């Protein structure tokens, strides 16, 4: 009988063996840790650097964003 797994709502989980298998071996587990670690390092590093070298002109772009909704608020307000 096939091993069917269920989620917390009782719905059967789809078989994902075609998508992936559990990483086998030390090298595979090490790569997974290094890969995900580097990903989060990139996220934190890039976002922090963007904040440090913040482009003051960027703020005006949020002004442009808000301006897009002004006609809408006028219509709704009117």
């Amino acid at each position, binding site marked *: 009988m096939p091993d069917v797994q269920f989620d917390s709502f009782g719905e059967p989980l789809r078989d994902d063996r075609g998508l*992936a298998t559990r990483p086998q071996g030390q090298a595979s587990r090490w790569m997974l840790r290094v890969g995900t670690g580097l*990903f989060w390092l990139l996220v934190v590093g*890039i*976002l922090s650097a963007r904040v440090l070298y913040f482009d003051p002109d960027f703020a005006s772009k949020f002004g442009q964003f808000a301006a897009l909704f002004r006609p809408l608020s006028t219509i709704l307000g009117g």
Partner: protein
Amino acid sequence: MNSDKLSGEKAARPGLAARLGGLLPGVSLSILITLVSIGIQELEQRVFGHPYLEALVIAIVLGMVVRTAWVPSSIWRSGIAFSAKQVLEVAVTLLGASISVSTLAASGFALLGATVATVAVILPVSYAISRLLGLGVRLSILVACGNSVCGNSAIAAVAPVIGADGDEIASSISFTAILGVLIVLGLPLLIPFLHLSASQYGVLAGLTVYAVPQVLAATVPAGLVSTQIGTVVKLVRVLTLGPIVLGFSLFGRNLRNRDGKTPASDRLNYFQIVPWFIIGFLLLAGLRSFELLPSDWATPLLKIAGLLTTISMAALGLGVDVRVIGRVGGRVTAAVTLSLLLLMVIAFFVAHSLAK
């Protein structure tokens, strides 16, 4: 008796109008999600000057959001399946209009050789990394193609050729898109850090950034020279999609046969070796290369291809089980990150040797 059976089958088979009517709800829903996605992309364009996330990515994510909140009933499913498969195949055919041998010739031998060599090296390495991380064969191919060629477009073009399903396409596109945005945000920071000239940065951006609009977003702050070089390198990289798609259609026949059954007929079926949409893709690429297709037609054909791809991505998103993607997310993220960092190291050395 046979004729009775045949006439019975004929009566049971729905007519063209009924079949089209059956497709309508699912196709309409996919188009609706596409229109919302294009609207969000336009909003990004107006606010930031460049779309950081393309409509294609937004469509698949929106489709997944809808699918998580509501499971489409049988009325919707045939149209969703049609949009995900047949519409994508037509889009791949139309992508052939982007392949032009004259562009290759104009780019120069050194740039062409370096770009093709980079793709040729990173494609198998990225595949090997994905397999080592335990990802399936098809998902590994999609991650490798997305990383080495042009992100989402390459994934969308290769997916039907290798018989990838919605979960595989959504997993590879979602996580590749996240990394794609990170590169666009992070790459300009490398200019002072690595003391890159405008031309070197252009080569680096063209070799590492996934989509053409993202190349513009990453290079425009560095100036016109970077933008021009980056775009040319990126276009050459996109052109490698032709031989890659053809290679998978010729040698990946077993991958398309998901259930492992052998064809009923032993006769050589050319459409099983090379799918019809690849023949169309090559035909359009040939017409464009020999200038038999007017150059004015290329842009509208590519726009239609982009629109159809977005519709099919919305449909694919509607069929995706987020829980499955969540379970492979860590491994896809690790595979894309490691492949991308390796690509950046190779691209850095190529940029230093090609440009001053």
